[in-house]
């Protein structure tokens, strides 16, 4: 029987589908009986999903327009200098 601590250590591997059959079975047995670990696995899953969403949600700010122009202008300078 896995302890809660051992379940927590395997949480990412479980939600990423990287556990072998034996470990998966052990996890399921524990989770069927342990509300704390069930909640914890849920938290790690939410964390994974929000992390991904946070990487996709970033808006372009005004300052980025300036930066994009600066990058493109350096590029043209480089070409004119034959670089």
């Amino acid at each position, binding site marked *: 029987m896995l*302890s*809660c*601590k*051992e379940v*927590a*250590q395997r*949480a*990412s*591997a479980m939600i990423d589908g*990287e556990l072998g059959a034996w470990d998966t079975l052990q996890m399921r047995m524990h989770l069927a009986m342990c*509300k*704390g*670990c069930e*909640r*914890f696995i*849920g*938290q*790690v899953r*939410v*964390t*994974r999903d*929000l*992390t*991904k*969403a*946070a*990487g*996709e*949600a*970033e*808006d*372009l700010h005004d300052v*980025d327009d300036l*930066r*994009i122009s*600066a*990058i*493109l202008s*350096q*590029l043209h300078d*480089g070409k004119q200098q034959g*670089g």
Partner: protein
Amino acid sequence: MRGETGQGMGDEAELVRKLAAGDRAAFEAVYRKHNAAMVRFATGIVKSRATAEEVTQDAWVSVLKSIGGFEGRSSLAGWMFTIVLNKARTRAGRDGRAVSFDGAGEDDNLAAAFDGRGRWKDMPELWEEITAERIIAGRSVLQHVNAAIETLPPAQRSVLVLRGQQGLDAAEVCAMLGITEGNMRVLLHRARLAVRGALDALA
């Protein structure tokens, strides 16, 4: 708008062609998708956010200058982040900073959560309030997530940005950072636990 930011192989080849042709809209889309993550990644390597922004800006110029040489042996994102990594590493070296991604000395934040028999001391919360749309303490939950990532030590931060946000292949991430796949999984897990801790504090 399908494929504007390069999902899938065919779309990526088309995107590379547009970037090489100097298409500003294509560049803006790529910049929008990756720039913040690049800065977040570079900030873990160089000494300040301002330096990371400089390094990233410099990397974008290199990306566009050398896009003609991109052969598709890695993903476009992997190739671009490698350029950021190289620039950041060079800059860190010049500033006398050592860069390593083995995660030595980086631990997880759950050590005190269990009793002597490995059981929860306190029952984990049900996170009913933690959703992407929520605003807590003046910031969206997603902004809290990115703020938490910016406090992570370099190895965890790099893995979480590259693997957990940019979705690069495990093998690509390991090759870039010079770590094993087992090491990468441990770092990814620790990084998630740290972000989980930040979210739990909002719950």
